[in-house]
C-alpha cells in the first residue's frame, strides 16, 4: 500500500517537472521555423479578440504562424520588459511615445524605406528616436475631446451650434447643471481619479496646455526640458467646469467607483470627456453622439479641432532573426492592404492611416475630419512627450485629489507645481 502510494507521488512529481519543461518548449517552437513567424505583443486589451481572429486568418491563408499576446491593462511596459528577455521575444511590439522610443530604440528596426512605410498615407504618426531613426509607425490613430449627446442638449433647450468656445460651453454646461434635478440628467459624467479614469484628465485634458505651449514654441520635435505653464489657467477653466458640473461631487472622486461611460450611455449626462475608441460602445444607445474640442478660453479657439494622435505604433524587433523580421513585415503589410483584414481592424481601431486600408466608420473620427476640413487646427498629442509618464501622472493625480477635496488657491498651486515643475524634475531624472 505504502509502496503504491509513494510510486504515485513520485509519478506526480515527475509529471509536474515534465509538463513544466513541455510548456517552455512549445513556446519557443514557432521561432524555429525556416519561414519565420510573427509574435505581436499587443497593449490594448480591448483589441485582443479581433487580433486573435486576424492572427488565425493570416495563418490559415499563408501558413505563417502568428502569435498575439496581450498585456493586461496597464502592465504593457512590465510585460514588454520580461518578454523581450525570452528566447523567443516579440517580433512586433508597440513604441507609443517618446519615452518608449528612448528606452527601446536599440531594439527597434529602422522602418524608413520599408514596404510598410510605403503604404502610409501620412507621416504624422511616425516616431523617431533621438538619432533620427524611424523606430515606429502608427497603425491607427485616435481622437479625443468632449463627447456630446445632442439630444440631451436639445431637451435642455440648447443646441450644439451654440457651443463655439469656452464662454458658450460654460453657459450651456452651467445651465444644465443648475437644472439637473428638473431635467433628469446632468452636464458632465463623473470624473473619477482612480487609475481606470484619471488618464482622461492627466493624459488627455492636460494636452491642451502642452499643445498650446508647443504651438507657441513652433512645434516640439523632442521632449522639452522644462514646461512654462503658460496655459495652466485654461486647463483650470475646463477642469473646474467638468468637476463642478458633474453627476458626482468633486469631493467623491478620489477612489472612484463610478461608471462614467454608463452614465453617458444611459442619458444621465450630456457631456463625457473621452476619446474615439468609445464610439462603438457609446453609439449603441446614443447613435448621433459627436465630439467637440477642449474649449478652454484660449484666443482664437473657435478654430480649434479635436486632439488627434496615437500611441498605437508598430515597431519591429531588430534583434529578431531576419526570417522573423521579414515575416513580421509581410504580416503588417497584409494587415493594412487585405480588404477583409483591414475592415476588421478598422472597425476595432477606428481608422488606419494607410492608402489601401478600409474606410473608417467611427463617428468621432468623422467629426475630427470635419473640423479639419472646415479649416480648424488639429491639436496634436503633445502629451506623448510626458517624461517618466507614469510617475509624472501619479503625482498630478495626487495633487488633483487634494484640489478636488478643497478647491483652494494653495491646492491649485500644488497642482501647478506637479504639472509644471514636475515635468522638469522628471525630465532630469529620465535624462540623468
Amino acid at each position: 500500500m505504502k509502496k503504491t502510494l509513494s510510486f504515485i507521488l513520485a509519478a506526480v512529481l515527475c509529471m509536474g517537472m515534465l509538463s513544466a519543461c513541455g510548456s517552455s518548449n512549445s513556446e519557443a517552437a514557432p521561432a524555429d521555423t525556416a519561414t519565420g513567424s510573427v509574435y505581436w505583443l499587443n497593449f490594448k486589451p480591448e483589441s485582443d479578440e479581433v487580433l486573435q481572429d486576424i492572427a488565425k486568418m493570416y495563418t490559415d491563408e499563408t501558413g505563417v504562424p502568428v502569435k498575439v499576446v496581450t498585456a493586461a491593462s496597464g502592465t504593457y511596459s512590465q510585460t514588454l520588459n520580461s518578454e523581450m528577455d525570452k528566447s523567443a521575444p516579440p517580433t512586433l511590439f508597440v513604441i507609443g511615445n517618446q519615452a518608449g522610443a528612448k528606452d527601446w530604440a536599440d531594439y527597434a528596426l529602422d522602418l524608413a524605406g520599408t514596404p510598410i512605410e510605403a503604404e502610409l498615407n501620412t507621416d504624422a504618426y511616425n516616431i523617431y528616436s533621438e538619432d533620427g531613426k524611424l523606430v515606429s509607425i502608427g497603425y491607427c490613430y485616435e481622437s479625443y475631446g468632449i463627447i456630446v449627446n445632442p439630444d440631451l442638449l436639445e431637451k435642455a433647450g440648447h443646441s450644439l451650434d451654440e457651443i463655439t468656445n469656452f464662454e458658450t460651453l460654460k453657459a450651456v454646461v452651467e445651465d444644465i447643471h443648475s437644472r439637473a434635478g428638473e431635467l433628469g440628467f446632468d452636464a458632465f459624467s463623473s470624473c473619477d481619479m482612480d487609475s481606470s479614469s484619471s488618464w482622461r484628465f492627466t493624459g488627455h485634458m492636460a494636452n491642451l496646455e502642452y499643445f498650446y505651449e508647443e504651438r507657441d514654441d513652433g512645434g516640439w520635435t523632442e521632449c522639452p526640458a522644462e514646461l512654462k505653464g503658460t496655459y495652466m489657467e485654461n486647463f483650470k477653466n475646463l477642469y473646474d467646469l467638468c468637476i463642478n458640473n458633474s453627476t458626482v461631487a468633486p469631493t467623491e472622486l478620489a477612489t472612484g467607483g463610478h461608471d462614467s461611460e454608463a452614465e453617458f450611455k444611459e442619458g444621465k449626462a450630456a457631456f463625457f470627456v473621452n476619446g474615439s475608441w468609445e464610439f462603438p460602445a457609446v453609439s449603441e444607445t446614443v447613435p448621433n453622439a459627436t465630439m467637440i474640442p477642449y474649449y478652454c478660453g484660449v484666443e482664437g479657439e473657435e478654430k480649434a479641432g479635436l486632439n488627434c494622435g496615437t500611441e498605437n505604433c508598430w515597431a519591429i524587433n531588430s534583434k529578431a532573426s531576419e526570417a522573423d523580421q521579414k515575416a513580421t513585415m509581410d504580416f503588417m503589410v497584409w494587415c493594412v492592404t487585405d480588404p477583409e483584414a483591414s475592415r476588421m481592424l478598422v472597425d476595432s481601431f477606428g481608422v488606419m492611416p494607410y492608402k489601401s486600408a478600409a474606410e473608417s466608420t467611427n463617428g468621432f473620427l468623422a467629426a475630427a475630419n470635419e473640423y479639419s476640413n472646415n479649416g480648424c487646427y488639429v491639436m496634436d498629442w503633445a502629451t506623448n512627450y510626458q517624461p517618466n509618464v507614469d510617475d509624472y501622472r501619479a503625482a498630478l493625480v495626487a495633487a488633483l485629489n487634494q484640489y478636488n477635496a478643497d478647491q483652494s488657491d494653495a491646492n491649485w498651486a500644488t497642482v501647478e507645481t506637479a504639472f509644471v515643475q514636475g515635468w522638469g524634475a522628471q525630465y532630469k531624472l529620465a535624462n540623468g
Partner: protein
Amino acid sequence: MKRKITGGYTLKAPMQRCSWLFMGPVVAAFIIGFVWPFIQGIYLSFCKFQLISDAQFIGFDNYKTALADASFRHAFGFTALFAIVSLILINVIAFAVAYALTQGIKGSNLFRTVFFMPNLIGGIVLGYIWSMIFDGILQRFGTSILLDSKLGFWGLVILIAWQQIGYMMIIYIAGLQAVPEDMLEAAKIDGASRWQTFFKVTIPNVMPSITICTFLSLTNGFKLFDQNLALTAGQPFTIGPDGLPVKQTEMLALNIYNTFYGQNSSSTGVAQAKAVLFFILVAAIGLIQLYYTRRKEVQQ
C-alpha cells in the same frame, strides 16, 4: 539502535550513494528558483540595464542614487513606523483573542474559523474592499483615505491587523494549548494569583509562539506590498519645490516597484540596488529580533 547495527552495512551504502537522487531535485529547484536569481539580482544592482540579458556594469552609482533618494528615505521611516505599530497591535490582540478562545467558551471553534478567514483573501482584493469601506465612512466627513497620510497610515494598520490577527491567533492557540496542565495546577496549589500564573507560567511557556509571531508580523510589516498598492498606492503625495513628489504612504516594497517600473531604464538598476538594501535590512532586523526573543524561551 539494534536495527541499525544489523541492517546498517547492507542498506546504508546504496542509500548514501543515491543521496543525490533524493536531494538533487530539491537542490536544483532551490538553486534555479532562489540562489541564482538572488546572485543575479545582486549583480544587477551594480548595472545599468533595460533587459537583464544585456546589463552594463557601472559600480556603486546605483547605491549612491538610491541612498540620496528622499522618497526612499521617507518610505523607510514610514515602513519602520508601520511595522512597529502593526507588530504591537497584531500580537497583543491576537494573543488576547487566543487566550479568550482557549478558556473553553461556547462556540470557540466557530470563532477561530471566523477570525482566521480574512487571511484567506488575497492582499489586492482586500485592499480594494477596504478602500471602499473606508471611503464609505470617510466621505461623510468630506475626506478620503487618499487625502490624509494619517488616515492612510491607520487604514493600512487596520487592514493588516484585520488580516493577520487570525493567523497569529492560531499560532498562539497552539502555544497556549501546549502549556503543561501540571505546571498550571502547581501554580494554583502554591497560591499564585491569576496574573502571576499568567506572567510567570503561561507567557514563558508560549515564548516560542511569541518568537515566531513577532518574527512573522515584523517581516510582514516590512515587506507589505499588495495591500499598500491597492489601498493607497502611496497617496497623498507632497510635491516638493523641485516638482518631485514624496509619496506619503508609500512603503519600501512599493517604492522599489515604482522605481523599477514608473521611470525609465536609468532607474531599473537603482530599484535593484534598493531591493538589495531592503533585503539586508529585513534580514538583519529579523535575525536580531529572533536572537532576542529566543533568549527568553524556556526549556520544558
